C-alpha cells in the first residue's frame, strides 16, 4: 500500500479528533458525575430515569400531603383535647351537684358551666389558616353561632357547617380523612349516638341555675347519661385521630423509603462509574500524547532530510 504525503496528516487529524471527542465526553462525565445528559446519550436509560423521577416527585408530594393532613389533625386534636378538659370539669360538676348541697351552692356551679359553654363554643369555632376546623366542607363558614338571652347567656347553638369531610391522597389509591364535622354521624360535638355537648352543657347550666331537687335528680339521671355519651364521642375521636396520625406516620415513612429506594435505581442508570471513567480518561490522555509525539516525529522526517 502506498503511503502518501496526505496519509499521515489525514490519519493523525482523524485520530486526534476522535481522541479529543472521547476526552471531552469522559471529562464531562467525570465533572458532572453523569453518564447521560441528553436523551440521545442513552434513550432507554433516560426514559427509565424520567419515569423514576416522576415517581419520586409524586412521592415527595404525598409526603407534603401527609404534612398538611398532620397539621390539620394536630390542631383538631388540640382543640378536642381542650374541649375534653372542659367537659371533664362539667362532668365533675354534674357529679358534685347532688341533693346534699344547698341550691345556692349548686347555683355557683351554674356560672362555671356557663363559662365552660362559652369556651366550648369558642373551641368549636377553632380556625386554622383561616379555615374552620369543625365546619365540614363549608369550612369558610363559622360552624357554630349562638343565640343569647337578655342576660347574654347562650340559649341556643346552631350548626352552620355540613356533615361532609374531605379525604386527601397520602399514597397511590390511599386516602385519609383530613377534616372534621361539628355535627352529624361523626360530628365532634354532636353525633347520632346521643352526644351533644352544647345542649348538655346548656341543660346542665339551666338545671344548676334553678337547682330544685327535681333538677338535681334530672342531672343525675339524664344529664350524666348525656355527658357520658359526649365522653364516648370524644374518646372515639381521640382514637380516630390517633389512628389517623399513626397512618400518616406509616404513609410518610413508606413514601420516604420508596423515594429513597428509587435514588439508587436512578443513579444506576444516570450516574457514572467514576473510577472506571478516570482510568479510561487516563488511557485516552496517554493515547492522545502518544499520537502527538509519534505524529510529530513522523511528519517532521522525510527523504529530504537525508539528501545532500
Amino acid at each position: 500500500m502506498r503511503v502518501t504525503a496526505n496519509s499521515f496528516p489525514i490519519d493523525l487529524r482523524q485520530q486526534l479528533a476522535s481522541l479529543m471527542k472521547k476526552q471531552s465526553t469522559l471529562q464531562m462525565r467525570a465533572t458532572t458525575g453523569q453518564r447521560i445528559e441528553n436523551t440521545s446519550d442513552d434513550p432507554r436509560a433516560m426514559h427509565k430515569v424520567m419515569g423514576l423521577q416522576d415517581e419520586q416527585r409524586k412521592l415527595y408530594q404525598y409526603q407534603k400531603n401527609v404534612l398538611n393532613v398532620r397539621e390539620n389533625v394536630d390542631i383538631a386534636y388540640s382543640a378536642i383535647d381542650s374541649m375534653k378538659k372542659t367537659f371533664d370539669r362539667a362532668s365533675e360538676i354534674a357529679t358534685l351537684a347532688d341533693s346534699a348541697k344547698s341550691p345556692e351552692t349548686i347555683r355557683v356551679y351554674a356560672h362555671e358551666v356557663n363559662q365552660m359553654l362559652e369556651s366550648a363554643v369558642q373551641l368549636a369555632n377553632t380556625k386554622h389558616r383561616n379555615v374552620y376546623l369543625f365546619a365540614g366542607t363549608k369550612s369558610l363558614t363559622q360552624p357554630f353561632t349562638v343565640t343569647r338571652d337578655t342576660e347574654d347567656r347562650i340559649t341556643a347553638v346552631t350548626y352552620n357547617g355540613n356533615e361532609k369531610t374531605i379525604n386527601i391522597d397520602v399514597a397511590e389509591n390511599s386516602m385519609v380523612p383530613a377534616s372534621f364535622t361539628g355535627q352529624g354521624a361523626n360530628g365532634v360535638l354532636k353525633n347520632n349516638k346521643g352526644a351533644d355537648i352544647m345542649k348538655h352543657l346548656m341543660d346542665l347550666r339551666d338545671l344548676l341555675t334553678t337547682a330544685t331537687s327535681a333538677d338535681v335528680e334530672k342531672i343525675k339521671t339524664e344529664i350524666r347519661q348525656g355527658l357520658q355519651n359526649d365522653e364516648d364521642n370524644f374518646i372515639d375521636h381521640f382514637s380516630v385521630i390517633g389512628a389517623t396520625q399513626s397512618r400518616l406516620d406509616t404513609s410518610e415513612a413508606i413514601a420516604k423509603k420508596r423515594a429513597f429506594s428509587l435514588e439508587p435505581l436512578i443513579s444506576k442508570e444516570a450516574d457514572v462509574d467514576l473510577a472506571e471513567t478516570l482510568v479510561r480518561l487516563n488511557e485516552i490522555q496517554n493515547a492522545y500524547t502518544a499520537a502527538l509525539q509519534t505524529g510529530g516525529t513522523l511528519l517532521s522526517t522525510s527523504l529530504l532530510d537525508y539528501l545532500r
Partner: protein
Amino acid sequence: MGIGLFGTMEMARNSLAASRTAAEVTGHNLANAANPAYARQRIKVEPSPALPTTEGPQGTGANVAGFEQIRDYTLDKFLVNEKYLTSYYDSKLTTLMQAQARLGQILDRQTVDPKSGNGGQTGLAERITDFFNTFQSLSAAPTSNTERRLSVVSGQELADRFQRAHDRLNTLRTDINSEINNAVEEVNRLLESISVISQRIGATETGETGMANELRDTRQQWFETLAKYTDFTTTENNDGQMTLMVAGQTFIDEDTLVDQFQTTTITDNPTAKQVGMSYVKMVNKPGLLNVTGGKIRGLIDARDDTIYTIQNEINMVAAGLITEVNALHATGYDLNGANNSSLKFFTGTGAGDIAVESTLINDPRRIQASAYANEPGDNTIAKQIASLSQKAVPTLTNLTFNERYNNAVAQFGQSVSNVETHLEAQEAVERLLLKQRDTISGVSIDEEVANLMIYQRAFQASSRIISTVDALLADLLRLK
C-alpha cells in the same frame, strides 16, 4: 550506417528534455502534495522510432508522449455516492441535535430540585408532574389562596414550557426552510460551474491533445461538493460529454445545463406536516423532485419526520391536558360557591396556544375546585384534577400524560442516537474510500523526491553524452 555523432547529440538533447519535463511534473506533484483533490501525474515516455541500419533497427532514444493522471474513476464515483450519504446523516444529526437542545429535556443531577429535594431535569416532564402536584396540595387545602395561586402559577409554567417547546421547534422547522433555500442556491451554482467546466474539458480534450487533468480534478472536486447537497448520477458518452441526473431527471445534458433546482411550498392538499414547508422542484417541470440523499434530503427528513413527530406528540399531550383539565374544571364550584361551566382552566387547543385562563390568573378564588355549591372546603374537583396524572388518557393511547411525553422523548432520543450511529459508520466508510483513493492518486513526497533523483541522474548522464560527443567532434576537427 548508424545515427552518427550528431544523431547521438540529438538523442541526448531529447533525453535532456524528457528528464527536465519529468522533473517539472514531479515539481507539479510536489506543489499539489497537500491538495486532497489532486491526482498525481506521470509523464508518459516512449522510445523514439528506430532508425533502420544495415546492422538492423537502431534505437534513437526516447520522447515525452504525454502526461498521465493516476486516478481510479470507479473509486471516484463510489466516493461521490458515499459523500451524499454522509452529508445526509450529518445534516440530519446536526438538525436533530438542535431540536434536542430546543426541546430542553436535559438531565442535571447536580442541581438540587427544591420541589423534590433530588437532582432533576429541566424540561416539560417535571412541569407536568409539578402541575398535578400543585392540585394535590390544593386538594389538601382547597380554600387556601396560596395553594390556588400556586396552582395557577404552576399551570402558567407548564403552559409556558409547552409553548416554548412548540415555538422553538417551529422556529427550527422554519429555519430549515431557509437552509433548504440556501442549499438550492448552492446546488444551482455548482450545476452551472460543472456544466461550464465540462464544456472546457470537452474543448481541451478535442483533437486528442491529451486529458484535461487539472480540469477533471476540479470537476471531481465539484462533484464531491454537489454530493453534499444532493444525490445524482453522471454518465459520459463516447465523446467525453457528461450528463448529470438527479432523481431520474436531467439537469446537465451533454455538458449543457438544461434545468435547475427551485424551492417550492406545497399548496395542493398538503398534509399537516407539509403546511408552509419548503421542498425542491425543477425550474422547468412541475411536481416535487424526489431527492434521496445529501443535505437537502437530510434536512427535509429531519424536519418532516423526527422533529414533526416530537412536536406533534407534545401537541397531543397539551391538547389532552387542556381537554381533561377543563372538563373537570367546568363541573366545579369556586370559592364563592358559583359554577361557571364555560370557565376553562386552560385556554387554547394545543401546545402552541395553551395558556391559563386570565380570569383565574387575576382571581385564583375562581378556580372551581369544589364539586358542590357553597362548600368551599370540598376538594373533589381538585383531587380529580390531581388524579389525572395517573389517568390512562384515551386520546393518548391509554397512557398517562407523563408516560406519553416520556415515550415521545425517548423515541426522539433513539432517532437521534440511530442517526449518530449511522453517521459514524458512514464516516468510517468514507474515510476508508478516501484513504484508498489517496493510496492510488495521492502524492508521496518520498516517492517524488526519489523519482527526482532518477531524473537528475538521467539529466546528468545525458549531459555527459553531449559533452562526450562534443569532445569526439573536437577530436575529429583536430585531425585537419
